[in-house]
């Protein structure tokens, strides 16, 4: 057995060396040919979670980026100075595994020679891909990362189109106190994960700063199957406002168990629950009355540059593409991320990485998604973010005033 193995190994060695040489040659040829190819198209690389736990979010990004590329190329491509260049989007599935996202980002930069990267969903994976982009000095646009802890790492090539999530807490406390002056206590239950945790801590801080008492504040770990214990404790605390942060499956479960255990309050907020249609679809009537905040809503009405001049234009295209689905903030923010690249290419008129990076840093544009202007850390500047509420199983906008289409109502009993 051992002998046969040895013989096989010996036989395969020359072949392997041959293969290696061929691979080396191919690699050399590849590098020689790359600059010539790179001139023909603008390449944007995207490591995406198309399978695994984040697949839903990955597919959203995939959908709008393809819509954007199609629309750009149909119009002849992106302007680089005075000539037009077509855009090529290169996507790889990183299967929702951070480690693989980093490997694929390297592959996109080294093998596919992309000029830009789009970061995947979520603060955690954005941080990983942003780190790779930084190492190779490739500008990376993140459209679904809102935690400041991603952008304060002095990554000079990472830019995010979402505003800091701090903008979601202070305004909300102020508005709810104004509308329901009897609101004195709040109970906070947050998922122990980058974004939901920062929201839970943010709201508790904002509430205390504005004179509310935090009657209960706990985190629940990733992988929690049951909220009964936490909700029973919250029920005993009798708060005026219950605030739960987490991802859709956590929040559906929490809302259902609140109903089951008779836990309620005049105001119930779930972040980011109602920003996703899956939340309202999963809960049906139980979703009614739940408030939330979001980075963007399709009821907003912004006008700007790019392939979709107005929010309505984007909404119309999106509905046509998806046979009637409503876009959420992930769709909006990611579709707008392309415009950042378009603008930088137009202004620099070159494919020089350093020039492009500087041009992106000084972005100051209006889009259908809203203004995009990056602060010193590379995050889109704070703005008034929509506060929303589910009423009759549809999403209503409570604030800001210029797009408001409903008043805050108390949770149905």
């Amino acid at each position: 057995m051992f002998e046969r193995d040895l013989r096989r190994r010996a036989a395969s060695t020359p072949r392997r060396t041959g293969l290696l040489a061929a691979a080396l040659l191919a690699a050399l040829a590849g590098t020689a040919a790359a600059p010539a190819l790179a001139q023909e198209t603008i390449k944007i690389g995207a490591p995406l979670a198309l399978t695994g736990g984040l697949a839903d979010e990955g597919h959203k990004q995939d959908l709008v980026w393809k819509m954007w590329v199609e629309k750009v190329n149909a119009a002849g491509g992106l302007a680089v100075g005075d000539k037009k260049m077509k855009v090529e989007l290169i996507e790889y599935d990183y299967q929702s595994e951070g480690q693989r996202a980093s490997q694929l980002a390297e592959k996109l930069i080294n093998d596919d020679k992309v000029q830009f990267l789009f970061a995947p969903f979520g603060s955690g994976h954005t941080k990983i891909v942003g780190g790779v982009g930084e190492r190779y000095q490739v500008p990376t646009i993140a459209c679904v990362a809102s935690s400041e802890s991603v952008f304060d790492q002095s990554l000079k090539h990472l830019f995010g189109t979402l505003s800091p999530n701090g903008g979601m807490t202070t305004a909300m406390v102020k508005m709810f106190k104004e509308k329901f002056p009897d609101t004195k206590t709040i109970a906070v239950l947050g998922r122990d994960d980058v974004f939901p945790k920062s929201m839970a801590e943010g709201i508790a801080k904002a509430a205390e700063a504005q004179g509310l008492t935090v009657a209960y504040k706990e985190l629940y770990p990733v992988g929690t199957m049951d909220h009964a214990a936490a909700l029973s404790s919250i029920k005993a605390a009798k708060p005026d406002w219950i605030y739960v942060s987490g991802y859709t499956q956590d929040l559906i479960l929490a809302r259902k168990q609140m109903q089951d255990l008779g836990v309620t309050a005049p105001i119930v907020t779930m972040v980011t629950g109602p920003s996703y249609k899956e939340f309202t679809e999963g809960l049906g009537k139980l979703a009614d009355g739940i408030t939330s905040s979001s980075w963007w809503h399709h009821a907003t009405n912004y006008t700007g540059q790019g392939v979709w001049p107005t929010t309505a234009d984007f909404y119309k295209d999106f509905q046509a593409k998806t046979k009637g689905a409503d876009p959420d903030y992930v769709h909006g923010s990611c579709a707008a991320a392309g415009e950042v690249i378009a603008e930088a290419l137009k202004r620099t008129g070159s494919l020089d990485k350093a020039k492009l990076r500087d041009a992106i840093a000084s972005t100051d544009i209006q889009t259908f998604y809203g203004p995009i202007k990056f602060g010193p850390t590379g995050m889109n500047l704070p703005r008034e973010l929509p506060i929303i509420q589910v009423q009759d199983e549809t999403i209503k906008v409570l604030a800001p005033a210029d797009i408001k289409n409903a008043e805050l109502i108390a949770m149905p009993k």
Partner: protein
Amino acid sequence: MAIYSQILANGLMLGALYACLAVGFSLVWGVLNVINMLHGSFIILGGYLTWFAWHGWGIHPIVMLPVVGALLFALGFALQKLVINRVVSAPVLTTLTLTFGLDMILYNVMTYWFTATPRRVQLDLGAVSLGPVTLPVDRLVGTALALVLTLALYAVMRGSNIGRAIVAVRMDRSAAELMGIRTERIYAITFGIGALMAGVAGVVFASVFPITTNVTGTYLGKAFVVCVVGGLGSVPGALVGGLVLGLVESLAGHWFGPQQAITAGFVLMLAILLTRPTGLVGVRGYE
């Protein structure tokens, strides 16, 4: 005091669901010595079948119970017969790797077809109050079903020829073969029953928890803990393990905050491993 009765009730109801989740896993591990990494995905598959039947054709989950059970049994039986039986007597790491690979296929196929969107069977049966204790009706029904199914499995294992054959194979494979038991077939039937129990757990879960492929790993992890706490390979073991875990998590969640609830479950598991490696009601030789 009122809060404690509520927390105990929460713990018992959750514990019965845990038992239902783990019993099939425990059986397969105990009899086949196969750590079935597919178990979590089987539960979710059962949940999806229930959801689609309910959402598409308005079929009540109770009606789906036998249908899903039969489908999952067939799937489990075929998998064991055609694939796993080829390596079933290999060291446990081989079968673990095999079921791990199969799980990746099943998991990703489900994510591809159904997407990871959390879905829910909206029965919303309301709740009943017993003094200060609120009992959600769907959890009560789930608890009852979990107990009935677990006891039914116990009865089958003790009372039927197949059940006795399974127990015989578990005790001594060679002796069972000498007695004329076709062990390969018993293996396939056992794996089929394991999948069936996962499937019906999925039906019960579909109206209690959101169904999404994201939680397959969580379910598998719970099954592990329940088996270690209760004891491997025995139906009463899964039941005791589930109930104890449910109670411990519920009380820990109240005393130390929900952040520590899962930790408490694992601490319990470690303590049992150190003091009673066979589990609370486990059989000797199956630690």
